[in-house]
């Protein structure tokens, strides 16, 4: 796939599967994306969908804090992260559970994070994923720095940086992309344009006709992709990764998708968008496209499909249990991780808390 063929100013967009799972861009399908691999990625989408539903269930039951669902953004999550290789970094925003899972972050940890424990960001040593980032857009320059480091070390790796349509308005996004252009850092700016930043629609976010064209400002390519099309997302991200990996510099990808759920569990989207709009979008389910394609190829039977969902439901439940069991409630944790060595005033404050809790008869050792 040649990125240059997809000038956003000419209105071009990468598409491979249509909404009915028909192949409309056969020549764009990457050679390494075999049907077997596709089945594997479909698995990942199912895993994400189930994990997302479970999070909502737990949130409603008071077992989890505020949570931002990924419903509708599975193709953008999975298709992009799937192209990464060993040594590559992934820099999430906060709506990339699927991408994080794919890169080896245990679901239990992600749950722990949204359940309200910092231990949820204590990823395994070998996992090259940064923590979830709450302040919109601030993680983008971290990704550029990681890519810069990789370039200086001649690692040949890429860094995949996620953010939303809203984040493109932040100065951080601009400064980071500009640095990436100047220092030709091997990274991919992957924008999940889900059409909303909480209540603010994409049309209020910027007067630019597309987000992809923003890359013009930084002297590197920007490309639009059907963000609900797993294959298209994969193809575009892979092309971008190839360019970055070979020293060709960064690429901006605008994955056009739609947030089917609320912004977070604290949000009420009925206040700012019409039920009809959402209904109309629901038919464009990223999982459905892949499923239809796989069925047409005879790669998926109803029985296998049912089994798959059952399997992930069980797995996800187990991870949820693991998360709840693993959260330490040790108040020492509040103090112990600000510096490599606890300074005296924090030791004093920690001791104070112990005394307070002891006075209340509360255990202080977790």
């Amino acid at each position: 796939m040649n990125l240059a063929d997809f000038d956003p100013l000419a209105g071009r967009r990468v598409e491979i599967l249509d909404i009915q799972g028909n192949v409309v861009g056969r020549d764009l399908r990457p050679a390494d994306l075999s049907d077997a691999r596709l089945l594997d990625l479909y698995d990942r989408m199912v895993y994400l969908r189930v994990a997302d539903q479970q999070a909502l269930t737990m949130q409603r039951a008071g077992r989890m804090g505020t949570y931002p669902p990924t419903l509708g953004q599975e193709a953008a999550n999975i298709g992009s992260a799937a192209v990464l290789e060993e040594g590559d970094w992934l820099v999430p925003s906060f709506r990339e559970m699927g991408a994080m899972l794919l890169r080896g972050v245990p679901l239990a940890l992600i749950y722990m994070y949204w359940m309200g424990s910092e231990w949820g960001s204590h990823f395994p040593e070998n996992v090259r994923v940064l923590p979830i980032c709450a302040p919109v857009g601030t993680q983008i320059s971290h990704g550029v720095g990681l890519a810069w480091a990789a370039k200086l070390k001649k690692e040949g790796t890429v860094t995949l940086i996620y953010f939303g349509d809203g984040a493109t308005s932040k100065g951080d996004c601009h400064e980071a992309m500009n640095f990436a252009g100047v220092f030709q850092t091997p990274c991919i700016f992957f924008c999940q344009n889900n059409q909303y930043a909480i209540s603010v629609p994409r049309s209020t976010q910027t007067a630019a006709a597309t987000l992809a064209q923003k890359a013009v400002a930084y002297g590197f390519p920007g490309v639009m992709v059907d963000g609900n099309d797993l294959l298209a997302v994969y193809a575009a991200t892979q092309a971008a990764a190839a360019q970055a990996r070979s020293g060709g510099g960064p690429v901006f990808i605008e994955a056009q998708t739609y947030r089917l759920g609320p912004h977070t569990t604290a949000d009420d989207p009925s206040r700012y968008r019409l039920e009809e709009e959402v209904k109309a979008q629901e038919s464009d389910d990223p999982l459905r496209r892949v499923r239809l394609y796989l069925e047409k190829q005879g790669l998926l039977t109803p029985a296998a499909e049912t089994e798959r969902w059952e399997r992930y439901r069980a797995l996800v439940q187990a991870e949820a249990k693991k998360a709840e069991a693993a959260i330490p409630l040790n108040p020492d944790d509040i103090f112990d991780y600000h510096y490599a060595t606890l300074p005296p005033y924090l030791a004093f404050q920690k001791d104070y808390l112990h005394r307070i809790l002891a006075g209340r008869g509360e255990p202080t050792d977790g």
Partner: protein
Amino acid sequence: MAKLNMVEAINLALKEEMTQDESIIILGEDVGRLGGVFRVTDGLQALFGPDRVVDTPLAEAAIVGTSIGLALGGFKPVPEIQFMGFLPAALDQIICHVSRYRNRSRGRYTLPLVIRAPYGAGIHAPEHHSESTEAILAHLPGLKVVIPSTPYDAKGLLLAALRDPDPVVFLEPKRIYRAIREEVPEGDYTVPLATAKVVREGDAVTVVAWGSMVREAVRAAELVAEEGIAAEVIDLRTIAPLDDETIVASIRKTGRGVIVHEACRTCGLGAEIMARIQEKAFLSLAAPLERVTGFDTIVPLLKLEDHYLPDAGRVSRAIRKVVRF
């Protein structure tokens, strides 16, 4: 008279003042159609139209920066920062310009704007949503910083802020957004800026608090009252300029003081209050002043968050300590 919570009281103040002052413009993320993530601006866009209640792109620095321009152009902008945790993105504009414009132009240009932001912990919100960095703002010359602790004061202080000729940061303790209901009159009244309020009288010890900590201070005073300790509780209401006269007058009477805040301890506003007391009422002090504060740590995520916030229990311990000194 209607009993309102703080969200409703602020909403009412905005509605009334926008009706009579056409120069007011609200702008920020999600303030319009959604009515704000806490619904503080609920219904205002429907009433005043999208030119006066404006949903902006996601960019705090530009929200404050364009507000500066709007103010210079004759409007009274009321930008909302969705959470105080995202105020740092606008701090450069606040430090370099909002707080300075009058001085650097020797009064030629003034910035009558009110920056609103919910602040503080205690609602089990995600990371970066529990900040209380009001001391940073209080350190900046040229700013006024207001923090109401009740619905009545919220309305009156906001009306005063909206009429103030200088820039005001109006911090709303979101933990008690809906926790307290009280009678809030319709129509015009103001609570003057830069005046603290004695919310409970006593002669044994002075407890100074603001925002959601006032409630904890009052509860602590009630706790120790049972033990015969009469604590006087002062609600600062405006933290900059600081009404140290009211604090010092009380300390002269009680000789003892406890300062309560949820922000980090080191270089928090509590230190400044201790310094002022020390400078102005040294000889009245019968015991060391005590601080009951948030720890010098990041506010923990929700599982440990409750350990972070000072509460009536901790405040009462400090009261007993200074009284027994």
